[in-house]
């Protein structure tokens, strides 16, 4: 019997330890697992590395983790959205470490981790600061940078619908980083708007097959 459902956001995160690396899906306010992030904040493990495209706005989501000073390092492509006050404040204080990665390389590094690849050559960032200290190579007359896989202890993702095997389907542009993160982490926890019966998802619309997902939790309306 395969049943990955967990009764609450809180229970789904009990084994997150201080110092864990946690991927968090979403882009801007789209496809973000807000309830899991809130549960992570309440869980209270600190010294976290947060791997996510943005660094939160206002007092919401990742911004609340920053405000509570649970985060040691942010790995992202765009930390500076309008209203990212907590990130800016901590950065100015020198209280947070930042690893900045071009967005396509960021997604591809996570895919490489999920796909068991050892690294890849990308033209992105060649000849720029992003290539400093990295191996570069000319291939067929074009410059490339060698990039390595990016994995994590946990991935927190959000889907529109999910079933008890962990199959996930997304709403419109809410997909974004969620599928690659689900592949790349040791333990993937999915927050779903709707928990559906096995067989209810169209097998051709499942964007994250259940094999990539360890735990599924229905939204509780806690935000």
């Amino acid at each position, binding site marked *: 019997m395969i049943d990955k459902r967990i009764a609450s956001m809180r229970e789904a995160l009990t084994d997150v330890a201080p110092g864990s690396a946690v991927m968090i899906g979403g882009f801007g*306010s*789209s496809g973000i697992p807000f309830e899991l992030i809130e549960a992570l904040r309440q869980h209270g493990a600190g010294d976290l590395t947060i791997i996510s495209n943005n660094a939160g706005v206002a007092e919401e989501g990742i911004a609340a983790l920053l405000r509570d000073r649970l985060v040691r390092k942010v790995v992202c492509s*765009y*930390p500076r959205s309008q209203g990212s006050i907590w990130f800016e404040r901590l950065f100015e204080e020198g209280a947070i470490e930042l690893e900045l990665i*071009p967005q*396509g390389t960021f997604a591809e590094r996570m895919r490489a981790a999920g796909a068991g690849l050892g690294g890849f050559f990308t033209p992105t960032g060649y*000849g720029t600061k992003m290539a400093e200290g990295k191996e570069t190579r000319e291939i067929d007359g074009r410059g490339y940078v060698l990039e390595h896989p990016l994995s994590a202890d946990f991935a927190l993702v959000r889907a529109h619908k999910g079933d008890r095997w962990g199959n996930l389907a*997304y*709403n419109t542009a809410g997909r974004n980083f969620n599928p690659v993160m689900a592949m790349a982490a040791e333990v993937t926890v999915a927050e779903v708007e709707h928990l559906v019966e096995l067989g209810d998802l169209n097998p051709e619309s499942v*964007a994250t097959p259940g094999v990539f997902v360890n735990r599924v939790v229905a939204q509780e309306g806690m935000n």
Partner: protein
Amino acid sequence: MQRLTPEQMAERLAQDIPDGSYVNLGIGMPVMVANFVPEGRDVIYHSENGILGVGPTPAPGTEDPDLINAAKQYVTLIKGGCFFDTAESFAMMRGGHLDIAVLGGFQVSAAGDLANWATDNEKYPPAVGGAMDLSVGAKAVYVLMRHTTKDGQPKILDECSYPLTGTGVVRRIYTDLAVIEVTDAGLQVVELHDGNSFEDVQAATGTRLLPPAA
């Protein structure tokens, strides 16, 4: 000198978006280009967060909270549009499948290097987003920017002083003064906006320009 307004700059660039193009418009002035593409041209807009076929702003109250563009504004999907994940979205860019990327710029060099993601202010956190991937990936990169900074310093230079986004990536520069093409021979002025002489535009530029064909 005559300076185009941002709307006029966007309108000028929009004339050069051919029918049937796949286009990515950067945050800021570039997104305005969509408002000025001539009627009758089918243009499909790509958004880095996984949309092909970005449509106009939704009517108030009809917003889908997940359906936003790269600038995090609510958008719609046009008929024939589709969704995909970020890895595929950047495969589309990096793999040369998009015809045109319109990007903003802090500086462009004579060799077509682009700087548009970080200044030299170390205290201000840097943010790169998808700019580097777009700059190396699109078949043609058009930069839409003012010709000079607010305090009159040139933004088109022998070499960029700000950190680079990509090297040798810019095809054309659309400014409030002129349209300039990056060629092997140098920066070729292809159009001077009404009322501007070549000498005026050259004087506002930090590197040598080639005058338009007589």
